[in-house]
């Protein structure tokens, strides 16, 4: 077991700073926070390799344990390049936001705010409909309903009665 406290403390500081930055409205800061988080994670993976060792270039005389662990290195290498791609993508987003809205800030989602203010009255569920006593008559609710032919064909009158039937 080997746990390198130096690496872990560096990792902790990077995580803390990264989290602090992504909890921010400025998109630029959020991106910087993400980069710090990626760096922190790379350090975490690196620390799982244990003690520092020889560069993992094979030679027959070397004991495998003397190398610096190659598996975390392969993972980190992947991670570095992916982070680059993600950063570039975020930069694209920041630039586009700037061009469109002239601002570099994350806005509250207006749609969500609107949903939260939805009134409990819903016409489809709660509006009072007049009781229809015929499928073939002109009633106030069907006068606009030209697609239903009976409505226009039989000009008989009919009553409408407010409220429920029971």
């Amino acid at each position: 077991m080997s746990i390198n406290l130096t690496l872990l403390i560096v990792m902790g500081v990077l995580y803390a700073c990264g989290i602090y930055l992504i909890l921010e409205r400025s998109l630029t800061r959020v991106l910087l926070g993400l980069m710090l988080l990626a760096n922190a994670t790379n350090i975490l993976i690196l620390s799982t390799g244990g003690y520092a060792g020889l560069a993992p270039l094979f030679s027959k005389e070397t004991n495998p344990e003397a190398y610096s662990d190659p598996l975390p290195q392969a993972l980190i290498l992947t991670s570095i390049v992916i982070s680059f791609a993600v950063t570039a993508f975020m930069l694209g987003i920041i630039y586009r936001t700037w061009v469109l809205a002239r601002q570099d800030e994350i806005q509250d989602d207006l749609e969500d705010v609107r949903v939260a203010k939805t009134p409990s009255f819903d016409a489809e569920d709660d509006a009072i409909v007049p009781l229809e006593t015929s499928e073939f008559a002109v009633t106030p609710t069907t006068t606009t309903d030209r697609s239903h032919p009976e409505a226009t064909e039989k000009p008989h009158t009919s009553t409408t009665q407010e409220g429920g039937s029971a």
Partner: protein
Amino acid sequence: MITVLAITFVAATVAPLIFRKLGRNAFYVLAAVPAAAFVWLLFQYESAYSTGGIEEILPWIPTLKLELAFRMDPLAWVMSLLILGVGSLVLVYCARYFKDKDPDLGGFGAQLLAFAGAMFGLVTSDDLLMLFIFWELTTILSYLLIGYARTRLAARRSALQALMVTTAGGLAMLVGLIILGQAAGTYRISTILDQAGSLMAGPMQGAVAAAVVLVLAGAVTKSALVPFHFWLPGAMAAPTPVSAYLHAAAMVKAGIYIVARLAPGFAESQFWLPVVLGLGLATMLVGGYRALRQTDIKLILAYGTVSQLGFLTMVVGLGRPDAALAGLGLLLAHGLFKAALFLVVGIIDHQSGTRDIRKLSGVFRSSRALGVVAAIAAASMAGVPPLAGFVAKESVFEAFVHYGTGHDAPVWGIWILVGLVVGSILTFAYSARFMWGAFATKPGVEPTPFKPIKPAFLAAPAILSLLTIAYGVWPVPVDTWIQPYAALFADRPDAVDAGHLALWHGVTPALGLTAITFAAGAAMFYGRNLVARAQGLVPDWVDGDRAYQNTIGALDDIAVWVTGRTQRGSLYFYLAVILTVAFAVPATALIMANKPLPEGIYFIDPNSPLQIVAGAGIVVGALAAVRANKRFLAVLMVSVTGYGIALMFALQGAPDLALTQMLVETIVLVAFVLAMRSLPAELRDRTGGRLRVIRVIIGAAFGITMIFVAIYAMGARVATPVSLDFPRLAYEGGGGLNVVNVTLVDIRAWDTFGEISVLAIAATGVASLIFVRSRGDRIKTSEAVPEGSVGRRTGVERGSRADATLAVAKKFTGVTRDAWLVAGRTLAPERRSIIFEVVTRLIFHSMIVFSLYLLLAGHNLPGGGFAGGLTAGLALTIRYLAGGRFELSEAATVSAGTLLGTGLATAAASGVVPLFLGGQVFQSAIIEFWLPVFGNIKFVTSTIFDIGVYIVVVGLALDVLRSLGAEIDEHFEGQNSLAEEDAGGLAQEAAESAASGKGTA
């Protein structure tokens, strides 16, 4: 049976085509389908009534014991008779009810026919899950059919209400069915009923009793029993033929069918009788009472149906032979008269334009035939001899007189009988009210205009009424059909003789009860004004409809409240919640576990003590990045941590990582500068003070938690690292010395392939964000730029030293020679840096060669596709910075999209080709050969994969430069999109361009 089902559903599918051809007469074609099935059914009588009935089983998924199991036994046969018979009559009726130009007639006909099929499947299923599927199919078709007039709010709302109520019950039933099936170890209904006795006494008796209640819940909602009766009157928004078929004759009988199907096995279950009798009686009385208050003849029938469904549930569910006989007899009688009555209502509505009894007057005078047909059906409903209703009701009274007054009768037996009589009195009264309301000539009301009825329109209800008479006068056939079902109850300990359906039983207590019913019912009708006034005084006790609306309303409110609290639209809030959970859960687990710190913690690595210095640098960089209030300062500070980490990699013994990290960090820095040059320099912190405290707390807590999680996680390792084998594997299997590189391109090639796919996607994303309308792969070369076209001197004082410098610089814009670095022609003088251009000329080619070296040597030395690609990307960056965007196009004559595609294809090919050579995906081979100058060469095929990686990374870098660099340059130059579009635009655009490219470092 399976064939009948298949034909019906296929016919339903092609129905819209028939309608397009024939118009409303297509209903006749559709009616032929259930009619033919009806004839087929008659021929099946012999075999259906032999022992066990007809069984058809089609294995479906044998391993899951799923099968299409159907069984035609006496109960199914009788139900099918009703379903197919009434179904074809209603379809015939539809042909005159609707008009050719009614909208969506094809879909309507298809749904109605499919419904007949679904009902037939429901009653013949011998598998619980099949039964459920057909059950829900009828629910959905009912929803569609009720909502036929989709422009009417009332129809839509009623359809949804019916769907919600019956589906809720259906889900409860599904749970019940699954419990039953699991308890019995089979889903075959016939088998489960055979072992019902042992199930109810066995170890799972509690679960089985609960399951029965759940199944009954499904039946209660489907058959519109109290407290779910309200959906059925609501469903009257459907076209009247639908009401006649679904909401009188067929679908609402599905609940009764379930009761009838399970009664032989489970009638003795604990909660059976209380549910069936209690809810049944309540429904019968509520329905009858409400029916007397309606002024719409269709609603009178609807509440009458509710009442009758309660009645049927009681009789069918009692679980005694005589009640079973009476119950099925009543079910058939009800199907005949209620369907006929609904069809009559449809005709009245169709011909007169109203169903309001306060408007209708003198209808009988206008159409006596219709009046007679209706009178027969209504009399049957009231129980008048010699009609079907009388025969059935007589047997019901008989059965309940036995039940209520026998020597072992329960206490409540007599009260049930009383309730039945009261319900029948109400039935008589509302039947009379219906006839009076629909047909009577009322004083003071104008006679309703009424168009003559065509015989084809009246045919369906007339046939039903004739059958009602036939059934009443000669009940022997019906009796014969039902007796085998009643015999299922004969082996009960308290069983009595089933008796027979007959017109004349002699003078019996039942006959006396019938007499009482008639007398009281007639009196209620005679004193109808008094009754109405009395009803007016009684407040509505419980209104199921309002309760439903309140429930749905409350659900809506809760949903909105919860959504409003959790989905605030603030990213900060979401992240804070997520991150708090992310550290709080592991932290709690760590504290709860309360373990001592693992051994092996050290502060300074003896192999690499300098790490502490690098670490300190990283920490300072990170903290400075947080504090920085200038945009580029913050970016620079983050870069400091990045370079620090590169150093850390080097100190840890990871040269590949250090190299890659350095290159990436450099390119990222350039990309940042390019992308952010238009944004303000200030980086203000807009999050307020209190929130900042929360941010600090979350950040610190997260960081500390991660430290401890890492310590304990690493302390918990017991196994030998798998990577100890990697060096040997890399050398012997992968043929390379650089273990990390071989891991990437060989041992974990799948992983890397996934990664480069992500790179290609991200690169495309960047290009799409900047170019917006396309990927922007068109290449603009400097040849399109005329000589001396770029020459701007703005903001420079005339005669100053800067002006003189620019004047010199401008001379170079007129260079005609096609120089290698053409910045002189394409870049504004003040944007050029001669030194930078010279350096670029010096090192560009060296860098490209070096990148190729890294690529090829990477298998044995630090380097590889990633590092090589990044180096090449850096070379392109330098060239772009020195020469501007046209220089970039000169440097990379292949578009970025092509590079990405080629790279991916190369990598994929290196994975696929081994398959054709008999190997596995991504298997590598070592080829050794001799070349003249180079000598012996050892070539490993996984290098091809690495070449693919190299090309993809170059493509990514190029995309970043083209998008964040060149394209944004163009935005700056204020090019409008029109100029780009026309053919000669390039020259034009270049000529107008005042300045381009990013200044030098």
